[in-house]
């Protein structure tokens, strides 16, 4: 109760990136508006082939359409830029496909409101479900992230459901985020000394659209993450030898 009173005095920008998920993304934005006046949904159409009609966006939500598919990382940067420019207290990200329940946003924000964390990951309790190749890949990401951060990274580094305070947003905006940026973002946050916490969230089934993570993109994501790890190891080696 005290937390809901505290959030009423704050401003929360809720990023909802959508790629060919128009209907469900609009529903997510409407659910966010129902949470209260403190929440401002920011719907970003990431160059969908079936674009979202700006007139169908709920009143009270912000809307931006990328003229091409720039990736979730760029959408995240757009939200970060806007939060910094307009001094929002917190930024939350929810997927446009309706897999992240909007009613859990206050729970994910709670550690930030208490001042216990700078970045909170909404880790999926059912994230192990799915194809075995995906499971192995997720285990690999989690294991490497745990190793790189000394166990500070969340158990699910692929979750797109997160909340960050303005200090974390300012720091993370310096990291170059592009397609599928989640593992890199959580590892970078830990490396920057930000306090990262986790809240368990049940992921709901996708309402519309299909995952953009096809086998080729999954391979590209794997490649990108490993390059990031190699770069991190080289940097660590350099700073260690400089000591």
């Amino acid at each position, binding site marked *: 109760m005290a937390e809901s009173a505290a959030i009423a005095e704050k401003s929360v920008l809720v990023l909802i990136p959508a790629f060919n998920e128009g209907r469900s993304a609009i529903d997510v934005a409407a659910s966010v508006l129902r949470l209260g006046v403190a929440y401002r949904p*920011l719907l970003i159409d990431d160059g969908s082939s079936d674009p979202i009609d700006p007139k169908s966006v709920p009143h009270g939500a912000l809307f*931006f359409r990328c003229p091409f598919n720039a990736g979730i990382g*760029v959408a995240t*940067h*757009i939200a970060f*830029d*806007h939060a910094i420019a307009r001094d929002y207290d917190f930024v939350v990200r929810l997927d446009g496909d309706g897999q992240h329940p909007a009613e859990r946003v206050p729970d994910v924000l709670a550690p930030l409101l208490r001042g216990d964390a700078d970045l909170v990951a909404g880790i999926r309790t059912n994230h192990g479900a799915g194809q075995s190749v995906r499971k192995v890949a997720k285990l690999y990401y989690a294991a490497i992230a745990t190793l790189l951060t000394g166990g500070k990274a969340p158990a699910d580094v692929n979750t797109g459901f997160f909340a960050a305070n303005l200090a974390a947003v300012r720091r993370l905006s310096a990291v170059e985020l592009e397609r599928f940026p989640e593992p890199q973002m959580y590892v970078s946050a830990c490396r920057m000394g930000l306090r990262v916490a986790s809240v368990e969230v049940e992921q709901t089934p996708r309402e519309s659209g299909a995952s953009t993570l096809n086998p080729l993109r999954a391979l590209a994501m794997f490649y990108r993450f490993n390059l990031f790890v190699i770069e991190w190891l080289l940097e660590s080696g350099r700073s260690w030898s400089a000591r």
Partner: protein
Amino acid sequence: MVRTLIVLVMVLLFLWLIRRRLVHIDLSFPWFLALFVLGFAYNNPLIDNYLTKILAVSYPIYAVIFLTLFIFFGLITVVLIKVTRDHHRQIQLLRALARSDLTRQDARKSAIEK
């Protein structure tokens, strides 16, 4: 004669691409240079023999293939650097556009809500 003709046709094709503005004139220079070097190497046994000796390969054709791969790798790298720079600029422009559009929207909505 046929080899010279092929090189000439490739050069003319390239000039046509530049004239039609399909290839930017400044970006085309490394490609033109590569075409010139390769065309010259293919037509000159002295260069082939020299390259064979320098690269310590068995046959002149291997030297020319190596040179081709080397030049193509260089050209692809040049193009990748250019494309990467343009991609970064494109993203910066997109972010600037979003910043200005969202600031305007947010200010208007806040004013209405108040």
